[in-house]
């Protein structure tokens, strides 16, 4: 007779390895007093154009830098480096998201103390990045007006894991009959009380409000680091 199998309790988080690295990154960022902001969105929603404008315009106020993840090519890093900010590409190969260890490797040799804000642009994907903590302070999810108002309902997990939502390409809103109240309602349905910004990287409309928001977060962080 085959004996009954024994049930042994283990309780281990499958993503523990990532979480351990993310925790050590978060501690490093905190010690250096750098605000770390990650960007997630579907491909083509305008993450890179948005980051390009952000880096160029924030440079006069802060020391900014960026890590940018892509499956292939260094095109985005080349685009972003035109701003004059320090930029490092992370080529993931076949991996559809960034993991904490990739961020840790990309930052080898960096002096984080010199930085005020570090941006991390994730691979364009609204599914897998939601499960991987990168040690960031703030996760921003972007959705462009051309994607439709129901994106938050289709991808509730990533919207729920984010802290802020930004609606991009607002200059095209009228052309695609984008319905802001519906989109806003959908965001609030999957992530109550989430702050939402509407802007256009192309015209610059709405960018200032977002910069002020980031500035406030930098001051807040410095306050806690000094204390």
């Amino acid at each position: 007779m085959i004996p009954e199998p024994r049930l042994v309790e283990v309780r281990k988080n499958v993503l523990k390895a990532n979480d351990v690295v993310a925790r050590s990154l978060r501690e490093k960022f905190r010690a250096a007093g750098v605000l770390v902001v990650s960007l997630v969105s579907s491909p083509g929603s305008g993450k890179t154009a948005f980051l390009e404008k952000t880096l160029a315009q924030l440079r006069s106020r802060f020391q900014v830098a960026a890590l940018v993840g892509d499956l292939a090519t260094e095109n985005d890093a080349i685009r972003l480096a035109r701003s004059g900010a320090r930029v490092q590409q992370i080529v993931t190969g076949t991996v559809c998201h960034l993991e904490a260890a990739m961020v840790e490797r990309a930052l080898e040799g960096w002096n984080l103390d010199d930085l005020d804000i570090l941006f991390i642009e994730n691979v364009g994907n609204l599914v897998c990045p939601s499960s991987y903590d990168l040690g960031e302070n703030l996760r921003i999810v972007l959705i462009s007006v051309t994607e439709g108002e129901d994106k938050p309902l289709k991808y509730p997990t990533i919207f729920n894991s984010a802290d802020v939502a930004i609606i991009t390409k607002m200059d095209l809103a009228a052309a695609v009959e984008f319905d802001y109240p519906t989109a806003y309602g959908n965001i609030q349905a999957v992530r109550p009380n989430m702050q939402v910004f509407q802007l256009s990287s192309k015209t610059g409309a709405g960018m200032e409000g977002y910069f002020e928001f980031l500035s406030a977060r930098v001051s807040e962080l410095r306050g806690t680091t000094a204390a």
Partner: protein
Amino acid sequence: MAEEEAARHGGHVSAVHLKLGALSGVLKEALLSSYEMACHDTPLAGSRLVVEEVPVVVFCPQCQAQRGLTSMQWFCCPECGTPASEVLQGKELEVVALEIQE
């Protein structure tokens, strides 16, 4: 982990029990179909993956109580309709137990 536990208890791992939250970002079907492939040629070959799906539970600030969500598209208290953003449960992706066959 499986090897360690199997060695400690003397036997081999015949099943892995996993808790999978609805907000984990991982799909049960995808996990089950990749499990067999991933176990091929490892000490876990031939073992079963037993997935326990964990629904999302939020804290309703109005009722001051834990509530299960009725829809992933509506993070509100099913009793009073108040938006509830504090997630208490549903992000799990956790191995909870191993079945060891002696």
